[in-house]
């Protein structure tokens, strides 16, 4: 697995998306799945940075692990913040998504976009680390 480290601040998001773009290009992903993966990783990384690190005052890096095979591009975000399972949060349901802007709550959209944008998303907490895993399948062209 390839590994790259980023400082846990929102200034890293730009470089992070650029790196995900490079990985997607190497894996041969098309424009739309590349964008969706960038969006998904950006959303989860934002949560790690804002709520995992900045809110409790932790200064730390997070890691991006990745692996490209014939079948898939796998990206794992690893951080040392307190355990946080993004899947445990209630997602907006179909009715929430029909609400007008005035009636909207502002939470949950990021995780909703994450799950909807990738082929597989999973979470585990192991060895003191949160591991958010994104899988994009590679379709033969």
């Amino acid at each position, binding site marked *: 697995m390839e590994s790259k480290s980023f400082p846990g601040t*929102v200034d890293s*998001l730009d470089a992070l998306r650029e790196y995900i773009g490079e990985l997607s290009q190497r894996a041969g992903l098309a*424009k*739309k799945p590349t964008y969706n993966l960038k969006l998904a990783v950006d959303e989860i990384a*934002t949560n790690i940075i804002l709520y995992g690190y900045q809110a409790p005052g932790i200064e730390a890096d997070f890691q991006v692990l990745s692996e490209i095979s014939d079948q898939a591009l796998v990206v794992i975000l690893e951080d040392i913040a307190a355990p946080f399972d993004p899947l445990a949060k209630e997602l907006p349901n179909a009715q929430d998504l*029909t609400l007008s*802007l005035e009636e909207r709550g502002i939470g949950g959209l990021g995780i909703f*976009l994450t799950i909807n944008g990738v082929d597989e998303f999973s979470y585990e907490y192991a060895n003191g680390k949160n591991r958010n895993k994104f899988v994009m399948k590679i379709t033969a062209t």
Partner: protein
Amino acid sequence: MAFQIESLIQDQVATFTLHGELDSLSARVFQTEIEKIANQPIDSLVLDMEDLNFMSSAGLRVLIYSKQKIGPKLSIYIVRPQELIVDTLTKTGLQHSVTIVDQYPV
């Protein structure tokens, strides 16, 4: 790509031209611009997104914030958004609350 925003306020229409990528860092800049117009008699918010290449949920939250802060009568026009940004608006149901147009005035 660095985020940039230009604003023009004229005849109760606030026009913002967004360039680059709108993430949780740049959304703060966008929100600050919205806060500046929140107390003005604005009835239309026009967001030119032709040169905006990326928008995360942080950008969506500013759209929601705009409507809630400025008021329910505010019309939001999004001018020439890129296809993948339209996808995000559609998936989250926000396309029903904004008007996507090729140019403004429509």
